[in-house]
């Protein structure tokens, strides 16, 4: 239905563009004078009048249709049934009517529910048809109105320009408002979680067993929401990833900027950047199916007990993914060091290695640190690799051969299989999400600051 509507709207708007353009041309020809604006602007003006009001109407219609239809259905049910029902009970009745209307019947419903469901379907059907008719009527009305406004002196270019300006401002507002909305809903649900579980327990508790805490009254007793092991697990895996990515990324950045010939660089640099383009799900099964078994075998050979989903396997593969972040940002930082510093060092008789270690790296350090911080934020937010390759059980350990779990893994597992989002278990996902959000945000803020300051120093 909506698809049809949109296709119709696009067609009418295109027709509006065509008619507007043609009328403008005709006016100019008949009055034997020049138009104020090019015919295309007249066309675009008409098309805007067709498209924009109708789109706004569709949006509002969809927003309110449901509430209106529900109200009508409820008021059509005999009063003696709905009388004395609480608001909650009525909501339940509505959802029962809706599922019957959609054909999902589990137990034989009451006759009045069946009747209401049929009524609901009829109303919805009518509402959809009405929307199509009303919206198209508005579109055609807009076409007529805008087309009548056209004249040779009509300032269509200015009108189109103003509309486009407005649309661009709208774009930015949408971008910012959606984000604020996301943050607000995270915050709101996290607060609901902290109403049920004390903040202190969440941040300092050492036992994370959310699967046990099914009933609200169990929570306080069992103390299942201590997130410390989850945080330490995340940090452990991120630390392993950085231990892989920092040396390799930094070394290759130095090699590519200071040593490599043009041909070598032109081949290797795109290859490094591709490492960031490999889908994370591919890295995920690379970790599970290749790296983890290999580590296990290697461990067995030297007598070490390696867990099948060890932190080391997940962290190492995550490190590979992160190499390009570090190498490209370090590359920028090293390239930005002024040539004079290099030349000065050589003039003092330092070798290339000495120049790099004692002059270039200290000078480029802030830029490199910024890159590393960005990479850390990437590592703690990464989901797919750890969902596939890390453990599910929170364990407080610093042993990289053990299985640990991460914040992202817990967010995903807490939400699986639930459709109601009001018990502590699912609400905990929001608390974790909020912590993750704040942590990555802080890392990014600090990193961008550091990089910014560094850039200013040499510019």
């Amino acid at each position, binding site marked *: 239905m*909506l*698809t049809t509507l949109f296709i119709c709207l696009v067609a009418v708007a295109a027709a509006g563009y065509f008619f507007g353009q043609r009328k403008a041309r005709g006016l100019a020809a008949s009055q034997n004078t020049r138009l104020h604006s090019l015919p295309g602007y007249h066309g675009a003006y008409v098309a805007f009048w067709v498209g924009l009001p109708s789109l706004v109407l569709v949006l509002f219609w969809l*927003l309110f*249709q*449901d509430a209106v239809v529900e109200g009508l259905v409820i008021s059509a049910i005999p009063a003696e049934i709905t009388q004395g029902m609480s608001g909650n009970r009525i909501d339940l009745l509505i959802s029962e009517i*809706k599922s019957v209307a959609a054909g999902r019947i589990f137990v034989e419903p009451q006759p009045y529910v069946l009747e209401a469901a049929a009524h609901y379907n009829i109303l919805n059907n009518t509402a959809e048809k009405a929307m199509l008719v009303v919206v198209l009527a508005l579109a055609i009305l807009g076409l007529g109105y805008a087309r009548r406004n056209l004249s040779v002196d009509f300032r269509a*270019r200015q009108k189109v320009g103003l509309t486009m*300006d407005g649309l*661009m*401002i*709208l*774009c*930015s507002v*949408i*971008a910012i408002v*959606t*984000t604020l909305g*996301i943050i607000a809903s*995270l915050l709101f*649900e996290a607060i609901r979680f902290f109403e049920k579980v004390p903040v202190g327990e969440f941040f300092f508790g050492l036992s994370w067993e959310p699967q046990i805490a099914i009933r609200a009254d169990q929570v306080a007793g069992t103390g299942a929401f201590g997130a410390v092991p989850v945080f330490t697990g995340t940090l452990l895996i991120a630390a392993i990833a950085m231990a892989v990515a920092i040396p*390799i990324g930094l*070394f*290759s950045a130095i*090699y*590519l900027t200071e*040593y*490599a010939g043009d041909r070598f660089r032109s081949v*290797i640099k*795109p290859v490094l*950047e*591709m*490492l*960031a383009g*490999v*889908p*994370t*799900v*591919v*890295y995920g099964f690379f970790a*599970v*199916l290749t790296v983890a078994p290999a580590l296990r075998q290697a461990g067995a050979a030297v007598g070490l007990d390696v867990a099948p989903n060890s932190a080391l396997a997940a962290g190492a593969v995550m490190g*590979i993914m992160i*190499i390009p972040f570090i*190498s490209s940002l370090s590359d920028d930082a090293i390239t930005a060091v002024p040539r004079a510093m290099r030349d000065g060092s050589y003039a003092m008789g330092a070798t290339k*290695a000495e120049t790099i270690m004692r002059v270039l790296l200290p000078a480029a350090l802030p830029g490199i640190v910024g890159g590393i911080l960005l990479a850390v934020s990437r590592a*703690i*937010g990464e*989901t*797919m690799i750890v*969902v596939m390759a890390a453990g599910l059980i929170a364990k407080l350990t610093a042993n990289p051969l053990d299985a640990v779990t991460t914040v992202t893994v817990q*967010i*995903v597992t807490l939400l699986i299989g639930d459709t109601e989002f009001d018990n502590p278990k699912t609400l905990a996902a*929001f608390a974790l*999400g909020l912590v*993750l*959000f704040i942590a*990555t*945000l802080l890392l*990014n803020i600090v990193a*961008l600051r550091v990089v910014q300051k560094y850039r200013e120093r040499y510019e």
Partner: protein
Amino acid sequence: MSRRAADRLFRFSLRSATLAAALALVFVTFFVGYEALPALQAAGAGAFLTDPSWHPASGTFGLMPMVLGSLAVSLLALVLAAPLGLGAALFENFYAPPVLRGLFQRAVELLAGIPSVVYGLWGLVVLVPLIAKHLAAPGTSILAAGLVLAIMILPTMALFSSAALGAIPAEQYRAASALGLSKWTALRTVLLPAAGRGIMTGLFLSFARALGETMAVLMVAGNVPQLPSSLLDPVRTLTANIALEMAYATGAHRHALFFSGFLVMAVTLLLVTLAGRSEKKEARP
């Protein structure tokens, strides 16, 4: 150790690290290709296209529903995010007052760093119920996945467009204004064409990110392996399919999953390469 030997050792270790990084990519590609190969040998590439459905247990491996699912979701995200991101970049560079400009730029940079699972969480708990209430139950659909992905790739799109617009010499805009062009006309006829390549880079990278994203999509797309017929149908993407089934897949099923992983990887790597190309040409004066 003499200074010269130290120098050589230093150079050698740097070179090894660089080659190790490059080898990692070769190794990952080889591993996926090696596991995918039996699927091609057993069924031939055609079977993935022609098999009517995805029922690995009974030996039909039609990837078409997932290929279309991935494309539908990513294209919808791109269609929504490209104009929004470009509009936001234009606003930032040409409309916003200076105070707002820096703030806006910073905000978008920070948005780019939010982990995708946070977006997925929001999509699952806020967006899906909204769609279910106002459009069609159960709400997990192409539309939901497309919207979540659009919000996710919006910062990428905005940052690249903004960088491309910022790189255009200020004289061009001034000259256009001096000729009497209104702001919007100047943008449309002078600045947008000049920034075209940079914007293309952003488009390619956004598309690659949308195609490769797994978790956020898996949480909101419904994951039914069927050919979708409307935006409100649930859909399963290639990446979600791998994530959902890899844990228990064996034999031909597993090789088929690797083949689909290989497919996604090939397409995203192609997009990343195209983006790099387009960026390089941009840099040349």
